[in-house]
């Protein structure tokens, strides 16, 4: 599609689309935005591997594909292993992997397929040093199967298997810090990103392509369906998650942490602004919100300390 010149001028992202209309995501889906940005960043010389997750459906049933790139659908727990095999085969056959004109090998998996069932294969991929990128799009539950908790579900959140009743209180454990587990492997590059900050995400994607070794990006991708939030609030929620420091943006490279917040000198906004827009937090009392708020700030302080010491 050719865009008018005045529109083009305002665009900070490539106008080229490799993620087609007609995909089957829900209204307001954060993950589908993420896929779109990945394809904008890399073009179609990429090989996608997608395990069981919303994106299996979003990409479309056989014989359709919403992605203008080769796509291998795989089993839930195998993303890290399949991209390892693809990368090995590309090298064996003499293809150029990564770099300016090389092939980009991407694993695109949800938080359940990454933080839970796929953690072992992710660990293997990172530890063996394959030249690929693993993107965990984090919508904080098993959305495709009907909103069940994953280990990336935050404290206080309702899900269909942490339902909130008279005796049993919603999710009682804090969100698993997958990025910390990833960094413990000392990967070439690791970062968090958000669909509310596409330029930052694109920059990180380009970085991942330019660096030798395994990269990992944890992309915050709100799910209005699962979060019981209005479908036009996706970007606002993703932005608030960053502004409240609930999901801070940062990068890890060569042992160094770098925080990249949109307004670095501002104090985090109160978490309540993020919480009150979502039905999944409706069981939380004032005290519960305080518990989550304290966890967020403690983690934030810890991250700032890391950036200070290992900056």
């Amino acid at each position, binding site marked *: 599609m050719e865009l008018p010149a005045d529109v083009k001028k305002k665009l900070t992202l490539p106008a080229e689309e490799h993620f087609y209309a007609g995909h089957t995501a829900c209204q307001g889906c954060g993950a589908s935005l993420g896929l779109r940005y990945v394809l904008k960043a890399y073009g179609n010389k990429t090989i996608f591997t997608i395990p069981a997750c919303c994106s299996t459906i979003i990409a479309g049933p056989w014989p359709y594909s919403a992605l203008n790139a080769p796509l291998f*659908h795989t089993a839930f727990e*195998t993303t890290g292993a399949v991209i390892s095999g693809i990368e090995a085969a590309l090298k064996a056959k003499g293809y150029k992997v990564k770099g300016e004109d090389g092939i980009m090998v991407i694993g695109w998996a949800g938080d359940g397929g990454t933080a839970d069932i796929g953690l072992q294969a992710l660990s293997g991929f990172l530890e063996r040093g394959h030249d690929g990128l693993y993107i965990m799009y984090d919508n904080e539950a098993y959305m495709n199967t009907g909103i069940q908790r994953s280990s990336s579900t935050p404290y206080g959140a309702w899900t269909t298997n942490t339902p909130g009743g008279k005796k049993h209180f919603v999710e009682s454990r804090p969100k698993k810090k997958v990025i910390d587990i990833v960094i413990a492997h000392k990967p070439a590059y690791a970062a968090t990103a958000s669909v509310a900050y596409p330029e930052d995400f694109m920059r990180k994607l380009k970085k991942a392509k330019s660096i030798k070794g395994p990269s990992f990006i944890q992309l915050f991708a709100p799910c209005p369906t699962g979060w019981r939030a209005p479908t036009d609030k996706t970007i606002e929620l993703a932005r608030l998650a960053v502004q409240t420091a609930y999901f801070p943006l940062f990068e890890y490279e060569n042992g160094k942490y770098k925080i990249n917040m949109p307004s670095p000198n501002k104090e985090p906004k109160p978490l309540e602004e993020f919480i009150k827009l979502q039905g999944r937090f409706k069981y939380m009392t004032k005290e519960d919100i305080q518990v989550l708020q304290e966890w967020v700030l403690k983690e934030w302080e810890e991250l700032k300390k890391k950036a200070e010491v290992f900056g």
Partner: protein
Amino acid sequence: MPKKVVSGNYAAAYAAKHARVEVVAAYPITPQTSIIEKIAEFIANGEVENLQYVSVESEHSAMAACIGASATGARTFTATSAQGLALMHEMLHWAAGARLPVVMVDVNRAMAPPWSVWDDQTDSLAQRDTGWLQFYAENNQEVYDGVLMAFKIGEHEKVNLPVMVIESAFILSHTYDIVDMPTQEEIDDFLPPRKPLYTLTDFDNPFSVGALGTPADYYEFRYKIEKAMENARKVIKEVGKEFGERFGRDYSQMIELYRTDDAEIVFMGMGSLMGTVKEAVDVLRSEGYKVGAAKVRWFRPFPKEELYELAKNVEGIAVLDRNFSFGQEGILFNEAKGVLYNTDANPVMKNYIVGLGGRDLTVNDVRVIAKNMKEIIEKKELDKEIEWYHLKR
């Protein structure tokens, strides 16, 4: 033709090397480990070019990495055993469903508990419905030949399915024997580079593999796997014949018949135990028994026609199963009986469960079985259908 004295495992590793595999992804498990160690040694010594070795963190990931590599167009190999094969089970379906001709050696080992590292076929036979072709080797030579043929058969344009080459734990895996190996030039001529059905590097025509199949289409995908299995029967025979013409060892028969021409009783089984059985046939023949052996080489696809041709000419078939399907009977027995049901072949069939978990089966054991079969045939009455032959009483 160069000869080497090698273990079954080394025979498998040499065959993978001579097939010019491009990606090996594997996890170690006893008694498979020396296969992947030997391949690592080939790389370390610079004996192979362009071979990527991925030392994965589990068998499940081994098969997942293999399907990724195979989908990218590489000739792909792995090996496993027992618990490792069971862990791979999900991805075995994936390899067949995505029509990826991975070749894997499985070293038959008994499933735990109780822990056992010895021979038993239940691990591989439990994978029979995954869409993999299965070749059971009797000796180290057959391990080597089987791997070479497996690539040619699995990668054939009318097949495009993964193939499992199966050898016995320790009886073959760690026992040294003379293996004839053709020269690399001869093998290259027999097995040219793989021409994949599709590859993920086709960026000009991007497509997705393994997407959601709705009820409108899923059924046809399954049917196509079965069509490929049916095609494989012909391809197996052709490749087996070609192998014989080139290298002197003919594999055109899916069931190898041994002294069955005038046999009244035939012993049927798979894998290394058939070596003992053939030896026993010679002994029993000298004692006046009219016996023969039928070694089932290919369990998938199942050699239905060959079995019928054999069964219609014999009085009794003793099926020796080194495996068991609980609640029913030996797996080969079950399959063989099923094949013959709607035919006019009606030999007496008895199932002998033998050798589970590495229990030895001797020539004398086969003699005891022959006597029992003769008695049954003379009395025209089956004493029992399934006999746990070695059971301590």
